[in-house]
């Protein structure tokens, strides 16, 4: 489904692939990659295994429509620098929102105070892959004309209200962001990136007598505002939110207990994110605190299951040209035909585990040290028509839309909450049921996958993942799958 990558070629890493971030920080703060490298060299040489300086400038803009008009608009600017020094398993991190040479020197002094003895194995990985060009846009979404955004929101509002007379409230927002980053590392390469991100969100409250329900839909990615106008995506988002809210007005109580579950394509891929994704991040495996630690090469899923994490999909919300440590992103096979094949790594954990960085070192902002995180995580398509999968179930639950999920990485227990689900009765989709949480055990859940559809879809671009208090945008994807035996947390005993 995805175009094959060019053969990987090393390149001169002192050269910036993107010229713009370099000029941006030089013009604005008088900080150039050579200044950064000098700072890293003089302050940190011989005392650390790895070190880097990360500069970031971020603009966010959000317009919110409620009660038919846009009454809320906001724009935020953040800038700052993070300096990191590492020795062995130790990390010193200092950040400041005042980017000046004096502050960077002070931050470097604070960061290195902790990392004062390099270990013997201080061989640093220099990225061997080329960085990508996945989201160069004609116009940054933060610079798009405000009147266009206002018009988009008004269209969404009218569409959602027209969809059903029971629609009582529509809250729609368009948020856009641009991040300019530049990183210089002690191993002598500097690289920058400009990252657009935009999202259109629609929430609908529907009422019928005393009953009231909520529906939400949205999407976006590293795309320009045009994206929502193309194929009239805005219209689909508005209708979906209204449909979900009105559908739930007639939902019955969800069953409680263990049953067969069919997950629809796309966003239900949050299952993978929670059930196995976090458990396959390098840090928990290096520390031995993941339920998957030490299980490389072992069978952890049914042989129908192949799962990858791919940060290189053009314009996707979870994609990056380079991660936040300067490593170009890649496509990492996590599970191949049921066998655990790989972890997602940042520089620290790959160095300590003797593995290769996979381009998964991410951070929320300059104010946070990077750690292994997912990008776009999805299961590859199988061969079955989705209708056949539903038809194969005598009695169960068909879940097509979800809210959030969470995992206890150590015990492996995870949950994710359905926001649109139906009973399956005798192979047919039946009555809609109220939202229910599904709970499972990571190392066990995917062994119960008995059918995989040919209908892989990625989500619309709404995911945000939280770990240790840091939020980053991510994507997920899934074909229709059948899981034999999952606990559904309904109220109908």
């Amino acid at each position: 489904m995805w175009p094959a990558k060019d053969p990987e070629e090393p390149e001169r890493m002192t050269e910036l692939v993107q010229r713009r971030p370099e000029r941006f920080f030089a013009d604005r703060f008088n900080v150039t990659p050579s200044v950064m490298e000098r700072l890293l060299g003089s302050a940190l040489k011989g005392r650390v295994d790895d070190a880097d300086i990360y500069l970031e400038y971020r603009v966010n803009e959000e317009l919110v429509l409620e009660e038919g008009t846009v009454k809320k608009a906001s724009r935020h600017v953040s800038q700052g620098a993070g300096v990191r020094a590492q020795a062995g398993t130790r990390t010193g991190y200092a950040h400041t929102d005042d980017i000046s040479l004096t502050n960077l020197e002070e931050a470097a002094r604070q960061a290195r105070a902790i990392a004062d003895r390099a270990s013997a194995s201080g061989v640093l990985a220099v990225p061997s892959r080329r960085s990508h060009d996945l989201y160069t846009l004609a116009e940054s979404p933060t610079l798009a004309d405000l009147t266009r955004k206002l018009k988009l929101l008004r269209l969404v509002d009218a569409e959602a209200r027209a969809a059903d007379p029971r629609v009582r409230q529509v809250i729609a927002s368009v948020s856009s962001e641009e991040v300019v980053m530049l990183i210089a590392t002690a191993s002598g390469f500097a690289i920058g990136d400009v990252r657009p991100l935009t999202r259109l969100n629609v929430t609908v409250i529907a009422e019928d007598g005393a009953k009231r329900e909520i529906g939400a839909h949205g999407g976006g990615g590293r795309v320009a505002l045009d994206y929502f106008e193309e194929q009239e995506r805005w219209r689909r988002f508005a209708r979906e939110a209204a449909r979900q809210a009105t559908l739930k007005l007639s939902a019955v109580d969800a069953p409680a207990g263990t049953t067969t579950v069919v997950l629809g394509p796309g966003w239900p891929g949050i299952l993978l994110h929670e059930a196995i994704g976090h458990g396959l991040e390098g840090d928990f495996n290096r520390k031995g605190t993941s339920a998957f630690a030490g299980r490389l090469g072992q069978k952890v899923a049914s042989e129908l299951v192949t799962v990858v994490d791919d940060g290189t999909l053009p314009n996707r919300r979870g994609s990056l040209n380079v991660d936040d440590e300067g490593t170009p992103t890649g496509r990492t096979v996590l599970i191949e035909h049921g066998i655990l094949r790989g972890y997602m790594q940042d520089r620290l954990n790959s160095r300590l585990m003797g593995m290769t960085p996979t381009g998964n070192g991410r951070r929320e902002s300059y104010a946070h040290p990077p750690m292994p995180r997912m990008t776009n995580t999805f299961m590859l398509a199988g061969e079955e028509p989705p209708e056949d999968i539903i038809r194969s179930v005598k009695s169960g639950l068909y879940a097509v839309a979800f809210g959030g999920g969470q995992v206890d990485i150590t015990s492996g227990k995870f949950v994710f909450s359905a926001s649109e689900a139906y009973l399956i009765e005798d192979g047919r989709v039946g009555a809609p049921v109220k939202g229910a949480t599904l709970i499972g055990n990571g190392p066990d859940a995917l062994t119960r996958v008995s059918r995989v559809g040919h209908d892989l879809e990625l989500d619309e671009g709404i995911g945000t993942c939280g770990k240790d208090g840091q939020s980053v945008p991510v994507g997920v994807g899934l074909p229709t799958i059948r899981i034999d035996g999952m606990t559904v947390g309904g109220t109908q005993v």
Partner: protein
Amino acid sequence: MRDLDTDVLVAVLRRAAARGATAADGFLVEDRHFSATVRLGDVETVTHARDQRLSLRVFAGRASAAASTSDLSPASLERVVDEATALARVTAEDPHAGLPEPGDLVDRLPELDLEDAGGHELSPEEKIDLARRTEAAALEMDPRITNSEGAEFSDRHARYAYATSSGFVKSYATSSFSLSASPVAGQNGDMQRDYWYSAARKRSRLDDPASIGKTAARRALRRLGGRKVKTVEVPVIFDPENAASLLRSLAGAASGPALYRRASFLLDRLGSRIASAGVTVVDDGLLPGALGSRPFDGEGLATRRTVLVNEGVLESYLLDSYSGRKLGMRSTHHAARDGAGVTVSTTNLMLLPGPASPEELIASVEDGLYVTELIGFGVNGVTGDYSRGAAGIWIEGGKLTYPVEEVTVAGNLLEMFAAVDGVANDLVLRDRTASPTLKIRRMVVAGN
């Protein structure tokens, strides 16, 4: 820490007026933050930080917009004002928009004892040592504590200033300190992690590192050997930490923005019974030295003590001035600032204690679940429908027996609060939201 430069704030408001804003207010936050994590006895991460942010809200008549920046240089501040006023020109008129009446703003700030300047003066080594001692206590507790996600010390020293175009300027400072540990217990291939912490505005009020570490270890150990149970409808007892999460959901539904958007299960319920008579919920922002206390809210209105639920009856919503006007009510002084403008937040939110001991509540249950952990986001704030992942301990014959995991607890928040038939006497304000142990007559526990 030097005094906050409120001149910057005043200058920004003046510029907004020059640019045509009819009114404006601004919030300035400046903080220093330090954290150290130790894992298996060695330092893992040490973070030093200094942050500042100025957020501005401007009104052009009845239209408004917000902007913020972490760059306080004159050029950047000019840009913020220009951007905010430009945004305000495209937003629609809103008859309910506007600042609170100047006469309503706080006059004299209460003495809340929120700062401990001396408490921050420990050296990084001493701070690291506190984390190390916390983790060590957990690791030494039992041979089945086999691993660790580390222990952390953190402190934050912050100053806040608020100013309005009507001439109000006030500021205050806060300190906060926290110490926590996340040990991992292992036995027969089973691995369980848990957590315990202490947080305070005075460093001297932090719990002893050894007691935090030991509690964390005990919590991890008691989860070993957890199993699923059969799906059943039984009494459910929430421990204080997890009972507090029910209060957070209640507060979310009582907040002005959720109400005027009709996205709340408490809509039109003011003055009516929403919980059993044993439930009284208070939000008190004036408790000296407490983590949720503040001298004024995000719009300069004096902090208060608000009775949210009195013996089961919903007595107040949580409102800022805007949501108050929308609902035809007055602000309850619960405005909070976030980047996007003004929102609503609680201060110190508590469910007041009842007469029973937690042991008595447990003893009253023949067959049921004692919940010690909840995961997931399965709470529908519009309907109150509730379904979350849980772990805990099974109660049999009035006694805690074996650990339970991989189950869900489900119900509806309105029905759950109505079914509270036991409130214990163990309220401790450990955090901004706190509850005693709570017993709910019946919920569905889903498992096998």
